[in-house]
Each structure stands twice: as C-alpha cells, then as structure tokens.
C-alpha cells in the first residue's frame, strides 16, 4: 500500500510539473505580452511555486517508496 500511495503522489507531482511548465512558458510567451505584466508575472510566479512544491512532493514520494514496510 505504501508503494502504491507513493506512486500516486509521484504521478500527481509529475502532472503538476507539467502544469508548472505550461504556466512558465505561457508567462514568457510573446503571444501573451498583450495581457500585461501582471498576468505574465502571475503565471511565472505561479509556475515557479507549483514546480517548487511539486519537486518537494517528488522527493517525498521517492522517500516514501524507499522507506521500510514496517515503518
């Protein structure tokens, strides 16, 4: 069960990394310049935050998957 939960956590983290990538690339894309600096900055900041916490979860998921079954 522990490994299954860890895998689900890893899948969720990877999905969020993809979303973070889309936020970041959209934030700096030329086609979104007309939306204003506020929108672009929000996308970049949101992307960075989501990516950062997704990486934390990724690390925790790996740690859980590798932990001993009896813990």
């Amino acid at each position, binding site marked *: 069960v*522990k490994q299954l*939960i*860890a895998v689900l*956590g890893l899948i*969720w*983290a990877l999905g*969020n990394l993809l*979303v973070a990538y*889309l*936020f970041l690339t*959209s934030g700096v894309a030329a*086609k*979104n310049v007309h939306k204003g600096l506020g929108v672009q900055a*929000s*996308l970049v900041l*949101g992307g960075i*935050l*989501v990516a950062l*916490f*997704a990486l*934390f*979860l990724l690390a*925790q*998921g790996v*740690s*859980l998957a590798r*932990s001993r079954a009896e*813990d």
Partner: protein
Amino acid sequence: MNRSVLLVVAALAVVVAAVVIALQVFSGAQPWGMLLTDNLVFARSIPFTLGLGVAFGAYRALGREPPGIQQKDGALRRFAPGTAAMHWVTAAAVVVALITGAWQYLKGLLAVNSRVDMPLVYRIHYLAATVLLFATAHFVTYWLMSETRQPLLVPKGQWIRHLRGTAHELPRPIGGALAAVLGLDMRRQPPPVGEFTYYEKAVSFPIWGVLLVVIVLTGVLKAMRYIYPIPGDLVWWVSAVHVGAMVALMVKLLDHLRYVLAPSRWPLLVASFTTWVSREYATRRHPAWLEELDRPLPETPAAAPAASASALQPGGTR
C-alpha cells in the same frame, strides 16, 4: 428537536428542488445548450446544497457523544469516522475541481482545442463544486456547533509558542529563517506536540480554511452571474481571484501531500482512513496529546457521568 428531523427536512427540500429544476430543464422551454443549462442548474441548486450541508453538519454536531479520546487495544482515535469520511469526500472534490478547473484555464491560456468536450469538463467541474459546497457547509456548521474545532486552532496567547514549534518542525534552513525574522528563541527546547502538529495548526489549517472559503465564494459568484445581474468588472475580478485561488490550492495540495507522505508520518495517513493511531506512535510523536489523556478529570458532578473507559478526556475526536 430530534436532530434527524432537521436532516430529513433538508433532504426533502433537496429532492423537491431537484424535481423542480429537472422539470424546468426537460420542459424544452429554453433554447440553452448543455453548458448554459448546466450552469443554471448548478446555480439554482446552490442554496439547497448549502442547506443540506448545514443540516448534515448540525446533525453530526448534535449527535456527538461527550468529548473524549476513545481508546482500544493500544490505539487512540484521532478522527471521528464521519470527519474522516468527509475529509476524503472533500479531498476527492478538490482534486476533481482542480483538474477540471486547470483544464479550462490552460485551454484558454494556451489557445488550443481541447481533446475533451468542454461542456463535459464544466459539468464535472460543477459536480465537484457541488460536493465541495456541501462538504464546506457541513464542516463549518459541525465545527461551529461543537468543541471539535478547538484542537485545530491556535489558542489565544499561544501564537509565539506555536510559531516556535513550527520553526522547529520545518527543515532547519527554513525554520531558522522563520525564527530569525520573527525573533524566536530556537535555543529553547521545542514545545511538545499535541494531537495536531504546530505546523498543521499555525500554517496548514489556516491556509486551507482561507483558500477554500475564497474559492467557494468566488465560485458561487461566478455561477450566479446568469441568474443575477453582476457587473462585468466584478465578474472579471472574481474570476481572476478564483483562478488565483486555484493556483494557490494546487500549491497547498502539493504541500499537504508532501507533509502527509513523509515516511515518519505514515501512521497519521493511515489514521485518516482507519481513524486510529497507535498509542506508541502518539507517545513518540505527540506527547502533549498523551499528557492531555493522562491528566485527571476535574471532579465535577457534570463531568462524572461523561467519563468512561472509552471516553476519558477533553478534546475528543474531530
């Protein structure tokens, strides 16, 4: 009043509302497409969903046994079964609403065609939102009507202690930075942890509460815009805040998962399903909770009948 009456009345109101809304939808009187129909059905159902949530929360609060920490076979009950069940109902609603909400937002942001029919994405989003509204109304009512909220909150005058406890629980560089900014004395022993950790009480629960309230309120306003005339500027700002809250919820959910998936907290994750945590684990990781349990009851006539072998001390299950 019998607490069941309240729940039955609310359930009947929901059934009647569902029938009336369905009759309107299937009458063929309106030329709306699937998306607008779903939006109006969702908007009209909101008062009844909230009412049912309030009634269910009141039903649970009025039916609670006297506060106490239940024990069996070397285990302590950390959550009431209803609370654990509603936690997972809320979790499922949040996850589905986040996925469908992000899908809508990214489709517009990337200006691409969706591979999934968009009205279907919205329909699932509204269904998840309905469940989230019900769960939120239930939890707010349940906590307001019972003392179960107390262990989730930072008591008056305890913020410094909780922030110091939080700083000790965080990874050293982050905890050290927090302590430096707030002027906390990290040379002192960290205060013993109670039923819930300092991080949960001082950081996690308040953020969850604020974000859920913001996303629910803005979502309700957005849904109501075709029923009540809401100024366009206000709808724009409400939509922007709704999206901002969605991104913040994505981050908070990642943080929550990071926290609960820590190998050292595995028994707590298990407890969110089984509602029980071993006394041995509680002794090691939540000593202040055990102190609460082992503290003698005040000798009052009112307290005496409430004390039993299975329900011993103030606090109780959430």
